[in-house]
């Protein structure tokens, strides 16, 4: 029994799940679900589809190099059964998973941290450079030209000829 990786999204394909397509040159394409299979049939490139692992790795959104990936590597030689090895591996699995999750979180955290500083910097600069666009709220009260007059009605002179012309139209 082997846990394969989906050709499209690189998620784990557990036994009994998904579909595999065997091309005539004997290359096997495994898909974890019909979503990935359909995307393959639509000739989509997994590197250009945002939700795949390939895209995320390519665009620096996920870790690409880590020692924890070594444990998941495909090995073509079966391991000889050894009770103590099994025991140790079973003990190590939760630890490894935890380390991996922490490192992934660190990676994402580091990425977000940089962007926050950058955004703050940009905001600061904008504020400095285009201060003239901002008018203090008090200015509206002082200067009547910013607001509509409330109590006084506007008087507009109407030319007699114009008014007649408008009515006839």
């Amino acid at each position: 029994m082997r846990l394969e990786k989906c050709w499209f999204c690189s998620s784990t394909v557990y036994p009994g799940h998904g579909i595999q397509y065997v091309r005539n040159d004997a290359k096997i394409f495994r898909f974890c679900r019909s979503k990935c299979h359909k995307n393959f049939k639509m000739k989509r490139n997994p590197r250009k589809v945002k939700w795949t692992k390939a895209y995320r790795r390519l665009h620096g959104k996920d870790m690409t190099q880590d020692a924890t990936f070594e444990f998941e590597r495909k090995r073509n030689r079966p391991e000889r059964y050894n009770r103590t090895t099994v025991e140790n591996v079973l003990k190590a699995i939760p630890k490894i998973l935890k380390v991996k999750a922490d490192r992934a979180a660190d990676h994402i955290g580091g990425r977000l941290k940089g962007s926050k500083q950058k955004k703050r910097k940009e905001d600061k600069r904008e504020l400095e450079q285009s201060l003239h666009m901002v008018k203090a709220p008090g200015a509206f009260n002082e200067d009547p030209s910013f607001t509509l007059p409330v109590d006084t009605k506007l008087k507009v002179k109407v030319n007699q000829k114009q008014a007649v012309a408008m009515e006839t139209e």
Partner: protein
Amino acid sequence: MAGFLASKCSHVGRSLLGGLGNKLSATVSTQYEMANNSFLSQIRSFIQMRTVLKVVDNSGAKKVMCIQALKGKKGARLGDTIVASVKEAYPNGKVKKGKVVYGVVVRAAMQKGRCDGSEVKFDDNAVVLVDKQGQPIGTRVFGPVPHELRRKKHVKILSLAGHIA
């Protein structure tokens, strides 16, 4: 009728593949994939009467037409045995055009459930010719074959095949 059309189209797909397949590796090849996938996106069906299949051994036949599926009401699937008539053959082969032969379906474009619940499908519909006892007529098998043939007691075909999927 639909089956016949589908099998016709499959030949188109195959010839495109054959033309491109040798030069391109599996990693690049967007063209390859395109030819492949337009063929894949059709609705696949059972191997039934009048389905034309490719012969992937050196028995001398090139193409056979299914005239009877020996199992299943709707038709044959991956690993089933069919009765077929030889439509195209190489000169000086063991099998001549017009003969009625038995064959095992070693590749089917229609997906088939596996024992663990997943599914498998292939590029084309292909057959290996056997005699009535189930022994292959040719001495070589080309292309990938499914491991389900072992359960169908066609171990000889499996041992002749280069790739087992």
